């Protein structure tokens, strides 16, 4: 009962803390709120006029929304790269930052769920997906698997982060049984969210570009590059703006993860390119469209080569010793791989799956302004969520924000 009262007090104080901060914090949150609101406005317009105001067509029936969804599922899955060393190998440096990785996962999952919702033609019928209330096509549809794994992963991370933060706030030692089993499940679950998302595409017989076993491994390779890359950048910001200690060793470890994953990702891309082009079957037309253009249509060509270029430069920066040692170069490499992989997932994977169509029709796709606004709005909202969670979590982690009666940390 006392614990419950403390918990309510915790929530109230955390809410107050949400509205407390430097002018920079206010400026940042206000800008994000305004961008998110502009996105909400664009979405309202889409609800009113239908998906006709997107760039999507019957031929290219998924676009920027599903591309961003796929990318963000990867970002969420990447938390596992911090979770394994922190909880399983008890790495001290990772232990200090693992929570931030899990908070990023929470923000990323919420963003990816939002991207699915804005992609629905009839969001008012979302309840049809709720088992029992609606009709759930399980286990037949990979999309229903995705609903389960994404929401399950969200719940797992909310529980782990919420529990550990509250314990820290109370200055109590967390009970292993209350979080460790969930951590172990979350590790396997993290892999499953990106695998299931890959299987959404792999399972489609009419789309040879996706109908290949390498999609899931490629997804994991790219996710474990982009996710830790985002965290490295976030950690630099945290180090600059707060007193929270993030050791160089933690960043160094993440750098190693980014390096290996990026090399694996490039290797898998090369494997795919070899399979598509060496055999030169009729089934490689999507790949030809993506890399070289097809029958005069080449909207994606500059994008994919830019993505490959960015990833290659990032790889060089990460593995050539004099460059690799400098933090500023590491940041450049991270930004390049974050953007490069975002292009690879969207323009490089989702869109070419639809071009040409199974009947050989070439219709190119570019997101409309309204569609882009919705995307930017969701990203702003996600950043807002992540900043807000960090704003509360960091003072808890550093011991500045704690229960009145909790004893001061040694």
């Amino acid at each position, binding site marked *: 009962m006392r614990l419950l009262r403390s918990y309510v007090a915790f929530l109230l104080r955390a809410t*107050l803390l949400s*509205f*407390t*901060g*430097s002018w*920079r*914090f*206010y400026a940042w*949150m*206000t800008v994000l709120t305004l961008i998110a*609101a502009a996105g*909400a*406005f664009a979405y*309202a*317009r889409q609800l*009113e*006029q239908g*998906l*006709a105001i997107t760039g999507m*067509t019957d*031929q290219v*029936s*998924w676009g920027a929304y599903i591309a961003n969804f796929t990318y963000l599922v990867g970002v969420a899955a990447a938390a596992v790269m911090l979770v394994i060393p922190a909880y399983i190998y008890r790495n001290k440096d990772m232990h200090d930052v693992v929570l931030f990785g899990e908070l990023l996962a929470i923000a990323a999952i919420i963003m990816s769920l939002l991207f*699915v919702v804005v*992609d*629905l*033609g*009839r969001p*008012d*019928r979302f309840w*049809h*997906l709720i088992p029992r209330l*609606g*009709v*759930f*096509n399980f286990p*037949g*549809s*990979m*999309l*229903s698997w995705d609903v389960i794994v994404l929401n399950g992963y969200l719940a797992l991370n909310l529980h782990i982060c919420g529990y550990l933060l509250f314990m820290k706030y109370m200055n109590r030692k967390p009970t292993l049984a209350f979080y460790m089993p969930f951590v172990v499940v979350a590790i396997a679950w993290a892999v499953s969210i990106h695998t299931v998302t890959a299987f959404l595409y792999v*399972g*489609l*017989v*009419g*789309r040879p570009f996706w109908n290949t076993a390498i999609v899931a491994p490629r997804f994991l390779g790219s996710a474990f590059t982009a996710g830790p890359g985002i965290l490295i950048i976030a950690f630099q910001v945290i180090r*600059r703006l*707060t*007193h929270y200690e993030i050791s*160089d060793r933690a960043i160094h470890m993440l750098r190693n993860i980014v390096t290996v994953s990026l090399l694996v990702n490039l290797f898998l891309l090369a494997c795919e390119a070899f399979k598509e082009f060496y055999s030169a079957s*009729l089934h490689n*037309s999507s790949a030809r469209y993506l890399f070289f253009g097809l029958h005069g249509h080449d909207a994606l060509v500059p994008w994919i080569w830019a993505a490959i270029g960015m990833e290659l430069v990032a790889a060089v920066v990460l593995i050539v010793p004099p460059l690799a040692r400098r933090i500023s170069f590491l940041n450049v490499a991270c930004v390049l791989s974050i953007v490069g992989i975002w292009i690879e997932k969207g323009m490089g994977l989702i869109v070419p799956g639809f071009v040409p*169509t*199974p*009947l*050989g*029709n070439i219709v190119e796709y570019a997101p409309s302004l309204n569609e882009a606004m919705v995307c930017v709005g969701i990203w702003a909202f996600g950043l807002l969520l992540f900043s807000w969670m960090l704003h509360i979590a960091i*003072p808890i982690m550093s011991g*500045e*924000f704690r229960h009145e009666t909790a004893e001061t940390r040694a």
Partner: protein
Amino acid sequence: MTEEPREESKEMSPKGIEVPRRNFLKAGFGTMAAIAALAGVSAPLASLTKGFTSVDAFLQQHYKRLTSDDLDQILRRLEAEIARDYGARVHVNDVRPMDGVEYGYALNLSRCNGSRRCVEACVKENNQTRDPQMQYIKVLEMSNGSLDVEKSDHYYDVPEVPREGKYYLPVQCHQCKNPPCTKVCPVQATWTEPDGITVIDYNWCIGCRYCMAACPYEARRFNFSKPEIPAEEINPDMAYLGNRIRPAGVVEKCTFCIHRTRRGRYPACMEACPTGARIFGNLLDPNSEINYILKNKRVYILKEEAGTIPRFYYYFDV
């Protein structure tokens, strides 16, 4: 990794969190800005509420879970909605499959001349949206000597058909025995009926378009906005799972003209064909014309390697 000098920031007090008054004022301004922005959002939302969906429509259950009373009420509601939105008096019926019937379609590639009369008839019969016009049937102009659809022209615009050196391949829903589209639907809004026709409950579809990505025949279309059909062009004889005017934001498809064929008539595309290239019939009847063709003609199945087992067959005279 070398240690880079870090800039220590002075923003946050290192000891505990205080909540000064000033911050509440700042919070107030931030919140006001957010509320003002959200008020802007509500403008298009307000116009949205009228005519978008009713409580009954929102709560409507899956077709297969409806009692006949439920269904009756829904059919009357749909008629009222169409009268309100399109100014047309129509009948929406629930037409059930006949016993002992499994439909099959055969198309004579030697005869099809690419006139696209089937396409026109289909649009009229099935109440597809006219702006831009939605078509269930695609006629591909193919070059002689190749069955590669990638070398086809979807939008041929020529004064006279057939053109020299070309043949024509009309493609519509193949009503597969192993349909990839129904398998992927997360809410079972689409399924195959006992007579072999794959249907969609247009009031259950959530509009995720996964079925469109799954279909190797591009047989599914999406209502990107509310369908537009002039009142005088509306075909008033409608079926719930068939040609009724579909809501915005859902996927729709060819149903072999369920509202006609389940009452013993031919599909509109077959009746419209000027060359007799189209043959429709009951696969379970050994004496049907379609069975004669399957037994005696050279039959080609489009994308047979996809394993979808279509009920739509192409054949050649020679």
